[in-house]
């Protein structure tokens, strides 16, 4: 079973098929939706998409890292990271069809 990689083009196509707007408009809307989510996260606000999951911005404190090649210690400055918490519905959906993998 080859795994495919879905891209923006596939999302636009799905929107085009399911909603019935033009291809150009579908592509533009996919972009706008992603932009709105990114904008919101950039402000530090969390994005909750019911039955899908939520995106949360978490602050990470400063820590000491190490250059794996030279072994030299380098400080890693505090930063913000984005975490995705899948909803139980999404987790169930993924496992519901993966049952065939067992045994």
């Amino acid at each position, binding site marked *: *079973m080859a*795994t*495919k*990689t*879905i*891209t*923006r083009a*596939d*999302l636009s196509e*799905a*929107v085009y098929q*399911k*909603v019935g*707007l033009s291809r150009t408009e*579908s592509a533009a*809307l*996919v972009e*706008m*939706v*992603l932009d*709105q*989510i*990114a904008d*919101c*996260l*950039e402000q530090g*606000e*969390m*994005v*909750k*998409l*019911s*039955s*899908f*999951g939520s*995106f949360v*911005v978490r*602050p990470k404190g400063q820590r000491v890292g190490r250059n794996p090649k030279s072994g030299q210690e380098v400080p890693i400055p*505090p*930063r*913000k*990271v*984005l*975490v*995705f918490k*899948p909803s139980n519905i*999404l*987790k169930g*959906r*993924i*496992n*519901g*069809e*993966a049952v065939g*993998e*067992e045994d």
Partner: protein
Amino acid sequence: MIKSELVGRVAAANPHLYQRDIENVVNAILDTISEALSHGDRVELRGFGAFSVKSRPARMGRNPRTGAHVSVSEKAVPFFKSGKEMRQRLNRESAS
């Protein structure tokens, strides 16, 4: 921001479309991603991030209340890795 607010914001930027259509657009996007992940496929959105599925091996767990051993079977979990541009956007303004 929750889904209905996302729909509202996109609708506000597209006054020529019905809010209902925007709702369908958002649902189509999320459904397509979920559907792909349920087949074990990857979803890569450049600049935003990538969704993939990781498998967790079967393990012996314990019921925390009774301490009884229970076997937890293998399962798949969705995973999201933020894209480079997204990470840069989050850290653009140096926080205080």
